[in-house]
């Protein structure tokens, strides 16, 4: 029937079932509380009188779902080891991340064509992450990169698997697929191509102190990983070895 959503491939039912349990556990009811004394009233904190408060603890478990829309093809491609972008037939701009319609006003929302892209590119910019959102803490320390894929005109966010002190803008990287692929950008990672030297003007390497300080705080990160997750420094370093 027109307008109907038909499921063609179902890889969701198990997680929907599994999540029911978390949704019940995370049902917003109060599971614990504390009574505290803290400042009260308007004005400056240091001049505020104290009052007694009840602080409640309650969990929340959610399973989100949404469609990738017309760029679904890109993510399904990742699962199938295909690396895709799109190309505007009019202005020839190559988009990776893809756009289904060209946003160059001259092209009048032209529909783009899907093309296969080479598994290589160069680092447009990066950040060395020593703290992150809860979901990614165990992956620390990692390099968040924006990589311009060869032939593409835009930059794709992708993790760069390297020792954090080695990354630089303009570094050539190869895109690799992970063994286990789920249909998101973590299905791929970037691995620096061999035989490159850090250019003299690399902003991270411009100053010895930058690297010294980064190494100091990498040690802090290893300590955190060990304490929180029991992950050893040696195992973190193994992640960066070419596979």
């Amino acid at each position: 029937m027109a307008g109907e959503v038909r499921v063609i491939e179902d890889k969701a039912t198990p997680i929907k079932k599994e999540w029911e349990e978390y949704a019940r556990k995370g049902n917003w009811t109060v599971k614990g509380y504390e009574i505290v004394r803290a400042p009260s009233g308007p004005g400056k904190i240091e001049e505020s009188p104290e009052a007694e408060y009840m602080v409640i603890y309650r969990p929340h478990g959610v399973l989100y779902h949404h469609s990738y829309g017309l760029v679904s093809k890109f993510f399904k491609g990742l699962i199938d080891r295909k690396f895709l972008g799109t190309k505007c037939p009019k202005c020839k701009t190559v988009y990776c991340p893809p756009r289904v319609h060209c946003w160059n006003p001259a092209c009048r929302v032209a529909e783009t064509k899907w093309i296969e892209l080479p598994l290589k590119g160069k680092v447009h910019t990066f950040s060395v992450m020593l703290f992150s959102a809860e979901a990614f803490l165990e992956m620390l320390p990692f390099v968040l990169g924006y990589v311009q894929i060869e032939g593409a005109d835009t930059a794709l966010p992708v993790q760069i698997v390297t020792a954090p002190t080695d990354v630089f803008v303009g570094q050539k990287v190869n895109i690799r697929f992970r063994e286990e692929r789920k249909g998101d950008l973590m299905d791929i990672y970037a691995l620096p191509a061999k035989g490159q030297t850090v250019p003299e003007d690399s902003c991270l390497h411009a100053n010895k102190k930058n690297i010294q300080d980064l190494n100091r705080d990498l040690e802090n990160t290893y300590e955190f990983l060990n304490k929180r997750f029991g992950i050893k420094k040696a195992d973190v370093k193994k992640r960066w070895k070419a596979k």
Partner: protein
Amino acid sequence: MDALINAYFLIKSGQFDLILVAGWEWMSEVDTATTNEFIASASDTDWDFTVGGFYNGYYAALETRHMQLYGETIDDLGRLAVRNRNNAVHNPFSQWRAEHGKGYVTLDDYYKDRIIAWPYRRWNCALISEGACCLLMGSEKAAKRLADNPMWIAGVGLGTDSMRPGDRLADWAYHGVYKADEKRYPVKYGKLKTPYPEMANFGFAREAARQAYAQAGIRNPLKEIDVAELFAPYDGVELCLYEDLMFCPRGEGKTLIREGVVEREGELPCQLSGGLTAFTHPVGATSLLQTLFLHWQLAGLIRKKLGDATLQVKNANKAITTGHGGTGCQGGVIIYSRD
């Protein structure tokens, strides 16, 4: 910021005479890593968040790009972090002072602080805050009737950019619009379809500032504006905004820092409140709080409100504030005037 600009247009339309604009945020119900996760869920969750990014990371990557192109250093970012703290100690409403007391800090202290997302240390990043603020906005007639020290809106502007920062390498909305800035892009770092703003600058701010300056009749913002409270959740954002708000040419943000222009005694003091990294950043109230602070500046009320006149800019007449959403995906500029 959007609430302020919407209220401005509603009052201008003649439909409303008075509007109470209220903003608040409560950000510590979950631990810091989860707070970051929730904030990051306001970013592009399909294209940016999945690779382990959160705002500190995205903005750090933007700053890395700017740093590579235009040569500012960690020292420059450190100077802003130190300045914000040394301003915030004179602001009794600041989170920094509540947590760390009234002592000044130095660049050496900054270097001891922990790197969160290189090139940013913790001190370069916005606070996680709780806070609220209300502002009463009204027509000219209402303001004259009700307010002792009204502050006037001289100009507003709004701008947008792509949701995904990586798209800004082929950023058609800005293609050929700011040619001088495109020329200041060092081509050795890769030929791009649209060299401005790419991932180094904020096109939305440039566009919003252009509109606001035109309305306010401002030709030379550095000379004509007396005080600024910029929406800079990261210190590199502030540096880039100097360029996009046309305080200086593209690539010269670092010079304003090095020459002390944006310090307390400088030609255009910025973030006297301590800014988002030392005063407070309860997201839904931040722009209201920055506006309130500018009102105290223009009305000469700093000593009365803070019990200390250190942060008072003498005889300030024009002020600027900016707002900012996503990774610079949209935002606004407001010019305030005392007279």
